[in-house]
């Protein structure tokens, strides 16, 4: 399995596995240590600032606020649906990009990862132009089924999937490229159809990569803001996810915005830490 991570183990896995002690005994070169510590401070201090400035006394009342719970629940399940949609569509796409060659594959790969670098607001506008009521595709949805995505919870899921799926595609494609294709070839010589080989061999090998991609996509969807507010609008209970609630409260009630931020942070950390522990155990 170790060839799946050619660039070494991610941080944290060492302690968890009581890993090779010689890594820790080695001297860390100063030119690496200093910037690394600066990076830790840079990334962690803003989170600490949230904790320090949080209005702890108002916390219980704010956490029990029905609107806050609405936004949190909406965030959790739209992010989960978006991650699921990314999985269903993204794994086949990643397989196509990693295992087949067709003209323009490089272009397709570049295009499907554009949402990674696109400002999410631009993504939201683009989605409106396609799936909006007057959009290229949306007008037919409206005409044939009287169905329109903007301002609906489904629209939130669409916006989140748009920005989250590339994370999964890249993670899974990377895993597929790192996996040894001989396993699949052996499966084929033993009479497995390509579809069976994909399910029973390929998928089993890249499962950790799929999980990593799934978690990344879920986390990205949970924090999604720009595409959501642009495409799906902002209506409490229907399209107002936590990031939107935080954004709109920060001017009228900065304390509440802080509490909501902490809540979102706590929930995502809990889920990420929980999942990571679980699949680490599964891999042992």
């Amino acid at each position, binding site marked *: *399995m*170790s060839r*799946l*991570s*050619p*660039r070494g*183990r*991610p941080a*944290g*896995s060492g302690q*968890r596995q009581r890993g090779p002690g010689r890594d820790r005994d080695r001297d860390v070169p100063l030119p690496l240590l200093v910037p690394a510590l600066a990076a830790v401070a840079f990334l962690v201090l803003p989170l600490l600032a949230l904790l320090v400035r949080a209005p702890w006394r108002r916390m219980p009342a704010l956490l029990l606020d029905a609107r806050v719970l609405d936004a949190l629940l909406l965030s959790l399940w739209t992010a989960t649906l978006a991650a699921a949609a990314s999985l269903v569509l993204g794994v086949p796409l990643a397989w196509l990009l990693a295992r087949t060659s067709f003209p323009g594959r490089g272009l397709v790969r570049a295009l499907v*990862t554009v949402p*990674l*670098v*696109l*400002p*999410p*607001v631009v993504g939201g506008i683009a989605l*409106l*132009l396609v799936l*909006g*009521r*007057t959009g290229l595709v949306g007008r037919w949805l409206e005409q044939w089924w009287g169905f*329109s995505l903007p*301002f609906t919870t489904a629209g939130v899921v669409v916006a989140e999937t748009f920005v989250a799926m590339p*994370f999964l595609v*890249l*993670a899974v*494609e*990377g895993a597929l*490229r*790192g996996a040894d294709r001989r396993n699949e070839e052996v499966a084929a010589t033993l009479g497995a159809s390509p579809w069976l080989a994909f399910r029973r061999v390929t998928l089993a090998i890249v499962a*950790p*990569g799929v999980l*990593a*991609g799934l978690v*990344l996509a879920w986390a*990205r969807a949970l*924090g999604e*803001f*720009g595409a959501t*507010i*642009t495409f*799906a*609008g*902002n*209506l409490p209970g229907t*399209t107002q996810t936590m*990031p939107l609630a935080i*954004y*709109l*409260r*920060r*001017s*009228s009630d*900065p304390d509440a915005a802080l509490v909501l931020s902490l809540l979102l942070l706590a929930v995502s950390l809990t889920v990420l830490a929980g999942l*990571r522990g679980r699949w*680490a155990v599964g*891999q*042992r």
Partner: protein
Amino acid sequence: MTLPAMPTLPTLPTLPTLPTRHKVARRGAVAAAVALALAGCLSDGGTAPRASSAGTERLSGDVTVLAAASLTEAFEVIAAQFEAAHPGVSVRLSFAASSTLAAQILAGVPADVFAAADAATMRQVTQAGAAATEPRVFARNALVIAVPAGNPAGLEGLADLADESLTLAVCAVEVPCGAAAQRAFALAGIDPRPDTYEEDVKATLGKVALGEVDAGLVYRSDAQAAAGAVEAIPLPAVAQTYNDYPITVLAQAPHPSAAYAFVARVRSPAGLRVLTDAGFRPP
């Protein structure tokens, strides 16, 4: 063996981009013609203790102006005229919801001038001691119903907005245009169910212009700025509310002289002409 298979991520995840309409425009060259309109504009700087000297003193530097989103078109013209009159000055405009800008000011943004879309938002700034002068009202704006060109839903007036099947956009209540919309609904005695609460008036206008909603409540000036894409239906007299637009120089202004001169320019007859041309009313 944990978290494998991320080696090909080619880029960092993008940071969520704030959708505030932060158009920070550095004004460059300007038509010479507007300079002709400037004569005497500096003589009536009511709030500007230092502006009296501005006529003789040569102003220079960048003036950073934080202005309500609804002021976008009018302030771009006024800023161009101001720069034409003061070649040493460049005006940097930042447009967003007034409440967003107020929060930035309270957080210490280095800006010179704040123009808000209602008095309540300006009060947040003055009460925190962040204004250098008593704010002055320089314009008023009326709320209208904006509908996509051709009025596809066939709306006739405010009362129609109570129809549940209608798709309606209003500004978030935290934002001045949202507060004004709620006032109008209360005055008219209707209880519409908006489909979205947008973060500023230009976002609301955008949803209407794209045809994504059947109607949106925006300012008259915004509907005028998007004429062609949207049509405006006036509110009935009983529900008509006006927003006062106050302006002030900020206490932390890095360039106070130019800031006072800019405020004077906005409040001058020439400035008022630009504002009324854009659909605002005189104070």
